[in-house]
């Protein structure tokens, strides 16, 4: 019920204009590989930190490849094309000069003829970057996939124990209808954790939400391997969530730097 309220709340905000949205730390943009490229240069498709077959046997190679080189690349290319059209138009150039994350936070200032399309393509560019950024192949050092550091503490505080959080996240992901993503966010100002869904390529960081983990439940994320059985995709995904990366994202939000690797 909380989750549904939060989603409704965000829809209302979206239709009535922006609120004081958070700045995305540069450190976080670098982690996600979505930082603004050199002036006038187009954004690049964020490279994966692993090979296309590295998430086997959990996420199949064909899916990772098409998801990255087909879908994510498509959003990147189309976003760049719209930004170019906007640049040619020469309108609201101050906003255009901002990183895409900041442009999308100020959606109502995007010239109307580009707005919906840019929110969609830009959202796709960012959301997929977030998805890849917290996955990694299994190896000896990541044998057990459990939260660490500040995220572990926050999960325990909010949910009692990890298994209860995992259950809620999994149920939310199973029940979500249509295309979209399931996010674990810190909610400003207290950073309390919230599981929240957004449809299509809406991005949560445009609100007082600091996403730290995301699961893609668009059918393209799992259909080749699992067909209609989304639950099996969710099970597989838990195996490849990299909680060190999640901790890095949380710390980047909270301005503590990505220290988790050093501290371990």
């Amino acid at each position, binding site marked *: 019920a909380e989750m549904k309220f939060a989603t409704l709340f965000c829809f209302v905000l979206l239709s009535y204009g922006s609120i004081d949205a958070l700045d995305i730390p540069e450190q976080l943009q670098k982690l996600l590989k979505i930082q603004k490229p050199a002036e006038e240069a187009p954004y690049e498709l964020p490279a994966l930190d692993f090979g296309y077959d590295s998430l086997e046997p959990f996420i199949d190679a064909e899916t990772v490849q*098409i998801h990255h080189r*087909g*879908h994510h690349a*498509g959003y990147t290319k189309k976003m760049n094309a719209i930004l170019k059209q906007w640049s040619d138009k020469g309108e609201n150039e101050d906003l255009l000069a901002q990183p895409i994350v900041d442009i999308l936070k100020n959606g109502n200032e995007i010239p109307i003829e580009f707005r919906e399309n840019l929110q*969609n393509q830009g959202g796709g560019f960012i959301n997929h970057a977030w998805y890849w950024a917290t996955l990694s192949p299994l190896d000896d050092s990541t044998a057990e996939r459990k939260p660490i550091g500040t995220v572990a503490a926050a999960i325990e505080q909010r949910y009692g124990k990890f298994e209860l959080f995992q259950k809620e996240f999994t149920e939310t992901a199973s029940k979500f*209808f*249509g*295309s*979209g993503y399931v996010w674990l966010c810190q909610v400003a100002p207290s950073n309390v954790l919230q599981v929240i869904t957004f*449809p*299509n*390529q809406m991005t949560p960081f445009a609100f007082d939400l600091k996403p730290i983990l995301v699961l893609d439940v*668009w*059918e*393209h994320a799992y*259909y*080749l391997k699992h*067909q*209609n059985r989304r639950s099996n995709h969710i099970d597989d995904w838990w195996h490849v969530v990299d909680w060190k990366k999640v901790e890095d994202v949380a710390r980047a939000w909270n301005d503590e730097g990505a220290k988790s690797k050093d501290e371990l």
Partner: protein
Amino acid sequence: ARALPSSPMAALFRRSCTLTLRSIASMRSKHTLPDLPYDYDALEPAISTEIMRLHHSKHHATYVNNLNVAEEKLAEAVAKNDVETEISLQPALKFNGGGHINHTIFWTNLCSSGSTDPQGDLLEAINRDFGSLENLKTALSAKTVAVQGSGWGWLGYNRTGERLELAACANQDPLEPTTGLVPLLGIDVWEHAYYLQYKNVRPDYVNAIWSVVDWANVAERFAAARAN
């Protein structure tokens, strides 16, 4: 039905009829998955056998099952006068009811390739409202490909304006309750409708589906929509 005469007895009789009908309604038979009018391989090569089998026996079947569950819960909630529960069931009714409605129409819109192009009244309406059949195909293809996320593209009939119109709906939102248009031809662009065969290349699927559209069925629906 004939109007009943008014009197206290009649009023009582009417009331007991209503109560009986209500209890009959709650015992009504559940929704069932309709059979396809063709085999799973009938729409090859436009739509693969594997997709048809999954789409019908898994996806559509799930909408039917979940619709029945939601309706049962709704009947209970209504009987208990539990309005909060009635309201909380609305999304499930819309998703699954819409899914059942949409797919039931979709299967009849399709047939093995080689169907005759539209003729007669339907062709006349297409030419009038779109210029030509090719224009219709181009416009509906573009609208359908452009659907964000999951949804459907539709050729519909506007009864008030007496003309053909195009629409796109999100998720399983059913066309008529959402837009007022009577559905004539739907194109499902949920990824499950094409992904195994076409992967992320939705335009190829939408182009291909034209070869298996059953224009006779579209014409039947058009005639029925106009008659109403």
